[in-house]
């Protein structure tokens, strides 16, 4: 047919020392669902954020909508109208109704007196959402709607005012927040959008979705475009190979653990959130990886083991070195295993506290002097000792934790767990938001702990962590352990295949 609706060429983006995107080309044809796929950290989100105008591109990039060039990194009127976005978090206000949410981006219909014409608003909103079915009550707060209904409202909000002509709807991992059963309904809606004449750029890291939905797919990895193919020409195997790349030799290869397995943690029949019956054994000195796609449930495992999961849980666990008795999973908190949580800013550090106060918070009971007094000198010595041991770069224990870099904050969080001398250390996304040099220091630190006999659980969606650290990896898919990979078999392709279920 005619030229592409959206064309991006020679797009590069650098964040400090990290090259997030390098000369990426992308063409979305008229009336197609074009998937953009790549592993975590491949640069998908950066690309979308540049398109949406959140980041500036490096000079030299070309971007055209329907043949007309537009500026990347500036929200211009013409582009705003042709490029519509539904971001991962949907960007809705849960307390407000569908009517209100749509009006937030497009304004209210008002009378001459300035009061809102509710009947017209309701009609307008209903017209926009009802083509998708689902029976959404446009007057109820969205918090009471189902996830797929919310997704539909977000799509309707993005599409409102669309003149029906050539344009691109960008969906950024819309299924990440959907339960598995509702994904098919969302796909129907996406097809409906395409059939109405728009193009769709669909961002995902799930291969099954690409095959179910997309016409063409662009694979990016490590900030480069690897290939653009028609989906019909691909097999799951060949797409996975494009995503994962050639098997490469990594120098940071841990040796498989030798000798008799000496269990420090046993978990049986764990049910929580999406998890359906997970068993795991962790041996002394083992570095066990747990991974999976977003929503598979892998990220919950450390929380449950440490008794920090908010929802209902069942199953049992025990620490054989400490006691023969099994503990119910809901009482796991009593075992007192420390957790390095996934979101450092929200769950990890207390931003208004100093480095020392953050470090000693779980250790305060050890620092009692007479009359319940806190032994300040011992506290300071303890903090300084651990700052030195894990190599935190800071002005001292009195410095505010937020003056530290992400990696150094993570070292503080880690030190505070290690200071409790636990038999098991559970880490979630240990290197999220950490620069490369600090990342290697964290790897060394974790390895040292394991060598001293601690069992380490590394729960990560970053394959680099797993490749660099783990002696064994459990891959969780749909709440179950789908695959166990150990020793030299832990490779990027093996992990990707196991996560996607394309073995």
């Amino acid at each position, binding site marked *: 047919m005619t030229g592409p609706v959206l064309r991006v060429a020679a797009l590069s983006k650098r964040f400090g020392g990290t090259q997030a995107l390098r000369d990426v080309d992308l063409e979305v044809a008229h009336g197609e669902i074009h998937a953009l796929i790549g592993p*975590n950290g491949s640069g998908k989100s950066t690309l979308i954020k540049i398109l949406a105008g959140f980041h500036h591109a490096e000079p030299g990039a070309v971007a055209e909508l329907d043949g007309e060039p537009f500026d990347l990194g500036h929200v211009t009127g013409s582009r705003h109208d042709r490029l519509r976005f539904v971001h991962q978090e949907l960007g809705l206000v849960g307390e407000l109704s569908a009517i209100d949410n749509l009006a937030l981006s497009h304004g209210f219909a008002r009378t001459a007196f300035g009061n809102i014409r509710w009947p017209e608003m309701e009609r307008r909103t209903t017209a926009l959402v009802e083509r998708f079915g689902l029976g959404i009550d446009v007057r109820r707060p969205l918090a009471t709607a189902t996830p797929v209904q919310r997704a539909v409202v977000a799509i309707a909000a993005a599409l409102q005012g669309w003149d029906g002509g050539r344009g691109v709807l960008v969906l950024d991992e819309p299924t990440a927040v959907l339960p598995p059963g509702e994904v098919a309904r969302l796909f129907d809606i996406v097809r409906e959008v395409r059939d109405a004449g728009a193009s769709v750029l669909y961002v995902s890291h799930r291969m099954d979705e690409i095959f179910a939905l997309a016409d063409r797919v662009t694979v990016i990895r490590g900030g480069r475009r690897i290939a653009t193919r028609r989906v019909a020409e691909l097999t799951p195997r060949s797409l996975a190979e494009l995503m994962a790349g050639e098997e490469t030799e990594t120098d940071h290869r841990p040796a498989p653990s030798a000798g008799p397995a000496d269990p420090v943690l046993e978990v049986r029949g764990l049910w929580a*959130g999406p998890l359906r019956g997970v068993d795991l054994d962790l041996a002394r000195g083992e570095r066990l990886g747990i991974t999976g796609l*977003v929503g598979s449930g892998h*990220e919950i495992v450390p929380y449950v083991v440490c008794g920090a999961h908010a929802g209902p849980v069942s199953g049992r666990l025990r620490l054989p070195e400490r006691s023969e008795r099994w503990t119910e999973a809901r009482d796991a908190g009593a075992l007192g295993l420390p957790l390095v949580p996934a979101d450092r800013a929200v769950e990890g550090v207390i931003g208004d506290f100093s480095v020392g106060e953050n470090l000693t918070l*779980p250790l305060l009971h050890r620092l009692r002097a007479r009359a319940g007094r806190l032994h300040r000198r011992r506290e300071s010595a303890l903090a300084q000792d651990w700052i030195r041991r894990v190599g935190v770069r800071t*002005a*001292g224990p009195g410095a505010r934790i937020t003056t530290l870099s992400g990696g150094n904050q993570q070292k503080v969080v880690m030190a*505070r767990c290690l200071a409790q001398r636990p038999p098991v250390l559970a880490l979630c996304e240990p290197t*999220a938001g950490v620069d490369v040099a600090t990342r290697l220091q964290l790897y060394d630190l974790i390895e040292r702990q394991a060598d001293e006999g601690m069992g380490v659980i590394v729960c990560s969606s970053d394959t680099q962590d797993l490749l660099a650290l783990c002696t064994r990896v459990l891959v969780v898919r749909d709440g179950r352990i789908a695959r166990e990979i150990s020793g030299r078999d832990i490779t990027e392709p093996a992990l990707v295949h196991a996560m996607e279920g394309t073995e």
Partner: protein
Amino acid sequence: MTSTPTRAAELPPSAPQRSAVFVPGALGRRAVTALSFRNIGAVYVWLVIVVLFSVWAPDTFPTIITVKQVLNGNAVAGLVALSVVPPLAARVFDLSVAYTMSLTSVLTARFLVSAGLGPGAAITLAMTAALLIGVVNGIVVVVLRVDSFIATLATGALIQSLITMVTNDSSITGVQLLAKPFAGIAQLDAGGITLPVLYLLIAALAIWFLLEHTATGRRLYATGFNADAARLQGVRTDRLRFLTLVASALLSGFAGIVFASSVGSGSPTAGTPYLLSAYAAAFVGATQLRAGRFNAWGTVLAVLLLGTGITGLGLATSAQWAASLFTGSVLIVALVLTGGRIALPAVLRRRKGIPSNAGAEAPTESGTPPATSKEI
């Protein structure tokens, strides 16, 4: 370098034992920062006020009588202000303190005057009532999970109805209230300084010790700053928040008894004027000494600052509206001058964050690990 003020701000002036861990050369610099406007701005403002009124009302203001008046007249206000400090440290608002104070004042008066009980029994019963209020507040806020701001307004209304039941909205007076053992609680003095000033000192010492020098205090601050993170570190945030509500009820209840003794009657509206000034003092106090943290001595300092200003205005002019104007202005100026590094925004930040957190607190449940949002 940027950490220097923070480090110094961390140190209450009376914690010399920590100096041992710092490099000796830093001592002078720490002294400078400890005396900086940022750290103890209220002291300088207070000095300016003293000078100002000494010039404005040279005959009446710079006298020993004024000093006594400021101290004696603000001891009860100080007790109420201190009572809200531990809850605020744990980010709990107890707005019922004013009503609790009124209730204990009228209950003590009623028991003494109508029931004919001795002072000991009357005070014990009134304090039991305060304890019960604390427990009810704790149940509503911690167990039933109602936001403390609105929950304690609601329990305040309940307490008000109790007060009306006891008093029919008129003050309770009687010779028993003016007689020696009971009247002595607030009116005994040494050199013109009355006993309530001593109570204020003891309460401030106790709260200072709790917040600065015990593990519990550290955990209270952790709860207030980031309850989720604190809970993950084994801090029993719910229990702490419950206990702070009990503590604030007891201390404000005690303030009510002191008030009844000092004025010699049980007034149904005894506490009402103290609510705003208590929060004003606590928030101004949070900008002092330990910038960003609600603390005892900062609060006492703020009470004295506000008290001095109001006393001075009373002596210098006869304008009735001057006192409230002064309180409001000081609160705003103190909060603005200390910039963004203070407790008020931190507290409000968390409050505002609630809706967005509600969506984000599910990463463990809904299966959206935060890592994906950090993806580059």
